[in-house]
């Protein structure tokens, strides 16, 4: 085949290309913890990096609230499924923090098949003055011991220790796309393409299947699960989205197997916009409950939508992320970009929503003022502590200075993963292998 011939040619051009990125460094998920003090990122190489926010100090005001590396560890390793002769990628698909219950922090990280519970602890003191051991830990010569002393705790350099506490394996035949911790802090769910399982955080050898959309005959398969999340307050409710653009709200009190939804949220298709790509672009790539629990935010290929849990017929708000791509859908289908899964995020007060796009652009929509802004996350266009300049994509016609035309957008620079601090206006943007953290200046308004 033609492809084989191409593979035989060795491509050295990447060595000259200074923007070549080691694939293992590509960030695949970003998540703040519940206080916003910690920010975790996962990458394609199976590593997790945790950043911690520096406490604000009056002495050095310019470093207030900066995030620095707190801990790095290897969460998942590549595996090989001998039965199917296929590799299992170590890429971290999702990280979710558990609510903090003691001095330690805990998080769940997952790849395609296995979920792991990690405990992050600090050690900043160590005991000194043992009676039987000396400073280096060697046993003392007992004849030299003349008196007893009580060991005292002395401060030491901060050491962050991360240990795997639970490994939840063999629960999924298909690739895990989401995990979500329940508000009861005891259970969590994991969803793959066709099934959703409920786990207890302390039990690794069992899980309950709560959704199963696998057809009896795989040839009848036309719809898969794309994302799922527990309701932030009601521990019995969860939502899952599908590749056909529908959302299903399920109540675990209704039955053990929640195949029958309690509510189905679906917007009828606009017949004037119908094309062969209609279904693909309606596939929901991410769903997030608002902090209030009253709304849901969904992202499909061209829009973000806000849904009211009380209205199933259509979303209450729809925002166009990059409608200029509508005429390019065939090219985007050809180069597979149409299958990119963008995430979306709420701000702490549920008044602003954010999502990523191409060319390292990300978009924010203010639900109250109905204003939106496009910003860029790249080294070239922003220096540290400089204010981000709004960007604009022009679609022919009038072109202002600094506008980017649709045809010069870089589709390899996609911002799929974004996160918003739970309380403050701090956002984390993953641009391929770089993490950008932007903060709102104290006195400026969000526009």
């Amino acid at each position, binding site marked *: 085949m033609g492809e084989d011939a191409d593979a035989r040619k060795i491509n050295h051009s990447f060595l000259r290309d200074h923007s070549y990125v080691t694939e293992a460094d590509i960030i695949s998920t970003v998540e703040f913890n519940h206080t916003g003090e910690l920010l975790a990122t996962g990458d394609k190489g199976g590593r997790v990096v945790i950043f911690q926010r520096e406490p604000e100090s009056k002495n050095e005001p310019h470093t207030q609230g900066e995030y620095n590396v707190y801990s790095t560890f290897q969460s998942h390793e590549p595996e090989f499924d001998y039965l*199917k002769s*296929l590799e*299992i990628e170590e890429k971290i698909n999702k990280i979710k923090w558990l609510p903090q219950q003691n001095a330690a922090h805990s998080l769940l990280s997952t790849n395609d098949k296995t979920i792991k519970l990690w405990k992050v602890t600090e050690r900043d003191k160590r005991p000194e003055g043992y009676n039987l051991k000396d400073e280096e830990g060697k046993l003392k010569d007992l004849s030299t011991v003349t008196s007893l002393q009580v060991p005292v705790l002395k401060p030491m350099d901060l050491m962050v220790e991360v240990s795997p506490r639970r490994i939840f394996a063999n629960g999924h*035949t298909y690739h895990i796309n989401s995990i979500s911790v329940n508000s009861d802090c005891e259970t969590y769910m994991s969803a793959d*393409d066709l099934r959703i399982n409920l786990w207890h955080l302390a039990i690794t050898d069992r899980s309950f299947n709560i959704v199963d959309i696998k057809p009896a005959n795989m040839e009848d398969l036309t719809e898969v699960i794309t994302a799922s999340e527990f309701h932030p307050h009601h521990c019995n409710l969860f939502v899952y989205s599908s590749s056909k653009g529908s959302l299903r709200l399920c109540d675990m009190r209704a039955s053990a197997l929640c195949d029958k939804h309690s509510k189905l949220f679906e917007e009828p298709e606009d017949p004037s916009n119908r094309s062969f790509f209609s279904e693909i672009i309606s596939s929901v790539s991410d769903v997030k409950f608002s902090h209030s629990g009253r709304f849901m935010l969904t992202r499909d290929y061209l829009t973000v939508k806000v849904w009211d849990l009380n209205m199933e017929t259509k979303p209450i708000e729809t925002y166009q992320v990059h409608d200029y791509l509508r005429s390019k859908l065939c090219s985007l289908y050809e180069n597979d970009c149409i*299958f990119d899964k963008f995430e979306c995020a709420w701000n702490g007060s549920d008044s602003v929503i954010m999502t990523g796009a191409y060319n390292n652009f990300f978009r924010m929509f203010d639900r109250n003022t109905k204003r939106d802004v496009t910003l860029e996350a790249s080294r070239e266009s922003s220096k540290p502590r400089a204010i981000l300049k709004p960007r604009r994509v022009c679609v022919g016609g009038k072109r202002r200075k600094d506008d980017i035309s649709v045809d010069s957008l870089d589709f390899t620079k996609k911002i799929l993963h974004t996160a918003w601090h739970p309380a403050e206006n701090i956002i984390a943007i993953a641009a391929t292998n770089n993490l950008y953290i932007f903060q709102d200046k104290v006195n400026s308004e969000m526009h």
Partner: protein
Amino acid sequence: MFARGIKRKCFDGEEDIEGTLAGFKSVPSYNLQRQSLLDMSLVKLQLCHMLVEPNLCRSVLIANTVRQIQEEMTQDGTWQVINAQNTGQASLDRLVSSDILCRSTKEQNEGKLVPSYSGFSKDFENTPSQDIISDLSTVTSVQAPRNPQSNNVWEMENSQENRGNFQKSLDQIFETLENKNPNSVEDLFSDVDNSYYDLDTVLTGMMNNTKMGHCDVLESFSSQTTTNSNSNCKSDINELDHIVEILVES
């Protein structure tokens, strides 16, 4: 993107590209575009990265797109004209029998490919507000092909093969996910003959006219018109063989 290989036409002095593209909104171009999309989708379904398990969501979305095109082509009559050309007989049974003829005796006895056929017939049943049998029985009085040129025959004949290939490709994709025992797949195709016409080259040739000239493709197809159903199944089986090769990494 679709305009590859299509000669620019001059419309009353309009020579800019936008003017010529506007002229392409006529029906024959739409058929070509749709066919091109269908072929692109089939190639995508086959060229999954088999080292890691293929992305199921992507495969399902592509498969749905192919089904959609197939349905539209069925409603257009583009899909069925080939049946009219083959024989006068028009019923669902006709499709059954030709399909079965394409399989080797061993596979027929094992009945393993039958489920894939029933899946196919379900697709037909899903076509909204259409009585399939009555539709097929009127195929003899179907409207004349919109494109009376010879390449229309090739286009529809290719659709016939694509349909069979598509269904089998789909089944293969989904069944590999199911399949816990790779040996059964090998058993299924252990007696398949390798020496058949490589459909992949044709498809990739259509995508970018570099591998095979347009004319070459037409010629190879026209040489098969005499043994029509046979050639269809030969390509089908070779299609499966190719996929199996990827699966077992031979």
